[in-house]
């Protein structure tokens, strides 16, 4: 069922995106919200599905959310979230600048100025892709460490096609990669950090093998990739947690938190786990504040088998 609606969403978006892109951003964003609300009204059981997901999230986090209200807000965000940064294609830096409200840029700049590289600690909360989009537009030397993103703007795709010793090409990981292939990606990430550049890594990726740590996130105890913490400990790079949420008026609120460092000693003896938990706690705090920005998390269980079958088919 989830997979079917993923495909429907994709088709709807492909159809309307060319029209939305020529509209004023605020209006385009409003219409995406309307599409999300229509989903809940038109699709049988969709409201019940959203309310169940939100109620489950509230129960796990011990939050006293108004389930009905949050579900409606979450529904409005569905298409906005799926649109990622696609509305920004073809628009100038000058044109999109007012859509971003950035807090803590001084944290990011101070971390870069330390000269030992920066791990941009990312997540799947809110409009997370927009952080990278904004950073590229601002000229930050950014690389992605993780799985290759799908359904992102042509602009972002172009930025992620850099080659060479400090390029992007080897940094895209696959869950099916062998140990030595993964090692060459990690080595390149370490060299990029040593060159003083920024490497984006998500802290909320569930992973089973290699450098992982058990942590509690959204009321579940699971195994998460600890690669970011290991790379931070190995390289001495500063870690800057970053978040982005999208408001109903279409503004992207970027936040760069204060940088921190993972000591070199954390590489040994299972000492990565507290750092992984620390990072996830920060994300969870955002989910508590903005549950309507948590489309990725509330439907994790439903989305993953569906995504796996989409991957197999493609």
């Amino acid at each position, binding site marked *: 069922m989830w997979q079917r609606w993923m495909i429907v969403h994709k088709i709807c978006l492909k159809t309307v995106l060319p029209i939305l892109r020529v509209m004023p951003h605020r209006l385009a964003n409003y219409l995406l919200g309307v599409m999300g609300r229509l989903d809940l009204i038109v699709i049988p059981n969709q409201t019940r599905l959203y309310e169940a997901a939100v109620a489950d999230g509230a129960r796990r986090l011990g939050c006293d959310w108004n389930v009905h209200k949050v579900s409606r807000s979450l529904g409005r965000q569905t298409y906005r979230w799926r649109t990622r940064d696609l509305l920004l294609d073809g628009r100038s830096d000058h044109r999109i600048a007012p859509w971003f409200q950035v807090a803590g840029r001084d944290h990011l700049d101070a971390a870069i100025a330390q000269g030992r590289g920066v791990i941009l600690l990312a997540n799947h909360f809110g409009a997370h892709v927009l952080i990278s989009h904004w950073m590229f537009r601002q000229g930050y030397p950014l690389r992605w460490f993780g799985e290759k993103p799908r359904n992102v703007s042509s602009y972002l795709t172009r930025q992620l096609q850099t080659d060479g010793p400090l390029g992007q090409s080897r940094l895209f990981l696959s869950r099916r990669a062998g140990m*030595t292939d993964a090692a060459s990606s990690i080595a390149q990430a370490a060299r990029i950090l040593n060159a003083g550049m920024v490497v984006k890594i998500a802290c909320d990726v569930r992973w089973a093998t290699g450098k992982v740590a058990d942590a509690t996130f959204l009321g579940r105890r699971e195994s998460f990739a600890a690669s970011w913490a290991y790379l931070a400990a190995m390289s001495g790079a500063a870690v800057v947690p970053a978040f982005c949420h999208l408001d109903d008026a279409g503004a992207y609120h970027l936040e760069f938190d204060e940088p921190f460092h993972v000591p070199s000693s954390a590489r040994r003896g299972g000492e990565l786990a507290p750092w992984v938990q620390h990072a996830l706690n920060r994300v969870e705090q955002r989910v508590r504040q903005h549950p309507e920005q948590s489309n990725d998390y509330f439907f994790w269980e439903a989305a993953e088998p569906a995504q796996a079958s989409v991957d197999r088919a493609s």
Partner: protein
Amino acid sequence: MPVIDSTLVAELAQIVRTAAAVPPEAPIDADSRFEEDLGVDSFDLVAIFFGVEARYGLHIPEEDMPPLRGMPELAAYVAHRRSSAAA
């Protein structure tokens, strides 16, 4: 064909043991496989490569890394690189 002497193997074994925190009771010899015999993961492997780079003043390009799956390949690779550098 570069010579792989026992001194090189011993030095590499020490690098591997330190970088990947291989316990003292686990033997590392010229035939050890990193993943299967020593439980090394991809991050440990990077620490090994960086340790080798630091010890021998080499740069191991990322494209050279995938075939280096155990002590035989690593020793042959380092011996080859050192002999090429000396020539």
